[in-house]
């Protein structure tokens, strides 16, 4: 898309390159208006509208694949394949979330606005993934967070939901302060906020300021990613937020955040700031802490939350390899897709089981709900990285990338962590399969089930069909690197 067709405002503002984003905004507004004026019994129609929006936006994104791979809007926004893939992943995640939400929120009078917020939150993640400007990163993160807090708090009479949102907010606001200050420092050094400009200006600048600014920005993004040391919100949100929202919040923002970290990393001059070891240590700490804390969880949703923390650590491995291994970008995108599917599938099972979260209450699941149990197995094994599921190929790529980048120790640590993670995933699977059914296990509804099963199948399909997908990822670039 060279912008010639839809050039609206100026010489470098091809609206076509942000068509998916525009569709999301318009869709969000349409849904909002619909929700405001439609009678209560039609509120579910908002879900359909949201799905249509996502589909259109997805279509608009898909046609951009293999496009110009350039920066646009005066170097503030990236129109590269990485951003497009991120959009597609986020949109798919959002669509699944919509399906999971229909029956979950059926009794909520504010059902309609929920989809508006969901769409806007998706937009935040998308913007974060595409931002090629520090301000864009800040705003994408802010949009994603602002909607995220609300999504987490959406059960307004549920104390846990509010508590989760509050903690999410408090941590987010603090780290946002750090992010902003870090961005300001980087601006001070480079006199610009576009990543392209910074990439030109930063080499050779003052190391003290650069290091401090980098650390501050990384802290801000670590929050969005759910990485140490700003990870604490993840288990709380996974536990307290409405289950479909939890599914969304542990996945979609990470897509944006991980890519943003990647973009930032390739911008920074490696000689002046050792971002690679920094990210590596962050990855190591995140995966280790997440796995350790998940080890003895008796609450499945919290367990999934901690597993999401550890997965963020794995994801950071891809960033470590950026620029050093040609597997870097494809491992990053593939990991995101694989993680998104598996995590959604796992949360989908929880949703379909009406939010069932006590480990013991999973006893006998396999005999009562064999398909859901199978999805649980598939998603967990994929998160562990058992072939031929998507998670396995992701891990192969990640391990390969970091080994290639000279960070074998990180790969070894990731291996150790993987073994630990298997232990807690099996803690959930064991009662499901090896214990007799204690009480009947009611389910939510067919939309949630359909979405869950789709994700489960997707995990398998993405794993076995990794070939074409990786082919397509192969040409992705991470601008401005």
């Amino acid at each position, binding site marked *: 898309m060279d912008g010639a067709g839809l050039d609206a*405002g*100026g010489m470098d*503002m091809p609206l076509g390159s*942000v068509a998916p984003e525009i569709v999301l905004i318009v869709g969000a507004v349409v849904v*909002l208006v619909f929700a*405001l004026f439609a009678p*209560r019994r039609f509120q579910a129609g908002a879900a359909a509208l949201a799905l249509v929006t996502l589909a259109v936006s997805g279509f608009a994104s898909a046609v951009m694949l293999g496009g110009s791979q350039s920066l646009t*809007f*005066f170097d*503030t*926004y990236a129109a590269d394949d990485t951003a497009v893939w991120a959009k597609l992943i986020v949109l798919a995640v959002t669509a699944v979330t919509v399906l999971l939400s229909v*029956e*979950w929120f*059926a*009794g*909520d*009078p*504010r059902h309609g*606005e*929920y989809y*508006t*917020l969901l769409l*806007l*939150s998706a937009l*935040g993640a998308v*913007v974060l993934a595409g931002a090629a*400007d520090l301000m*864009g990163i800040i*705003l994408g993160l*802010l*949009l994603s967070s*602002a*909607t995220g*807090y*609300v999504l987490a*708090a*959406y*059960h*307004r*009479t*549920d104390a846990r*939901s509010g508590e989760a*949102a509050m903690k999410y907010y408090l941590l987010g606001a603090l780290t946002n302060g750090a992010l902003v*200050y870090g961005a300001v*420092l980087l601006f*001070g*050094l480079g*006199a610009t906020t576009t990543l392209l400009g910074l990439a030109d200006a930063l080499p050779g*600048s*003052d190391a*003290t*300021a650069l290091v*401090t600014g980098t650390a501050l920005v990384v802290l801000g993004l670590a929050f969005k990613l759910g990485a140490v040391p700003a990870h604490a919100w993840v288990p709380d949100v996974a536990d307290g937020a*409405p*289950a479909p929202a939890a599914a969304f919040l542990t996945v979609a923002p990470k897509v944006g955040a991980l890519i943003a970290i990647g973009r930032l990393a390739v911008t920074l001059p490696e000689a002046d700031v050792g971002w690679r070891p920094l990210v590596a240590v962050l990855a190591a700490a995140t995966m280790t802490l997440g796995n350790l804390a998940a080890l003895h969880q008796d609450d499945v949703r919290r367990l999934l939350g901690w597993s999401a923390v550890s997965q963020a650590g794995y994801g950071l491995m891809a960033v470590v390899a950026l620029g050093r291994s040609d597997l870097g970008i494809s491992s990053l995108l593939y990991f995101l897709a694989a993680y998104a599917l598996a995590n959604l599938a796992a949360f989908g099972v929880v949703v379909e089981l*009406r*939010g*069932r979260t006590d480990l013991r209450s999973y006893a006998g699941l396999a005999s009562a709900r064999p398909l859901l149990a199978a999805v649980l197995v598939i998603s967990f094994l994929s998160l562990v990285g058992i072939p031929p599921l998507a998670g396995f190929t992701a891990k192969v790529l990640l391990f390969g990338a970091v080994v290639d980048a000279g960070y074998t120790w990180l790969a070894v640590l990731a291996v150790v962590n993987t073994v630990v993670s298997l232990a807690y995933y099996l803690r959930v699977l064991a009662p499901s399969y090896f214990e007799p059914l204690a009480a009947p296990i*009611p389910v*939510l509804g067919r939309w949630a089930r359909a979405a869950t099963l789709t994700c489960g199948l997707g995990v398998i399909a993405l794993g076995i069909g990794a070939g074409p997908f990786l082919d397509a990822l192969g040409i992705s670039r991470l601008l401005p690197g």
Partner: protein
Amino acid sequence: MSESLFVDVAFWLFGGGSVVAAWLVFRTDSMVRAAYWLLASFAGVGVVMVVLNARFLGLVLVLMMAGEMTIMAVFMVMFMMNPAGLNPMTMVHQHRQAKIAGVVAFAGLALVGVVAEFPDRPADPEGEATAELGRELLGDSMLIFETAGVTLLATMIGSIAIASKRGRFGDAEDGSAPPPLDPQGDHS
């Protein structure tokens, strides 16, 4: 040079005042007073901005914060069951750690400010700062600006969604709980 002197004095006065006001936010024993100290701190920074030739920004800041702090004060009166918000309050925790964290944060950033060499490229004092900002908003950074707008929109929708008690269909909170594990319950 007199202008320079004026600038220095104004800076030390308002900049220093801003810091002192900030400190007093957490030293006062009433939430309402804290809110106004906060406003004072922002006002001090606003003035410094003006001094630095960012007049528009300074003004916006002061106006915005004045509004916000008013809300904050009202809010406290409304919700904290603390008319006038004047009751003594020393509600702190992990005080020592917080102090250390604050000191470390200050020391670290001040160190960066003092030690680090930033490019020395002063802005043109005659520059049309406000006009440039306008051009930037509608030109190079239009996308950023639009994003900010959407973010504010989302914030409005979200705030209302969770804070407003009344909905179109009666009590907004009715039915806003997670579905029960057992569908025989009140699930519709």
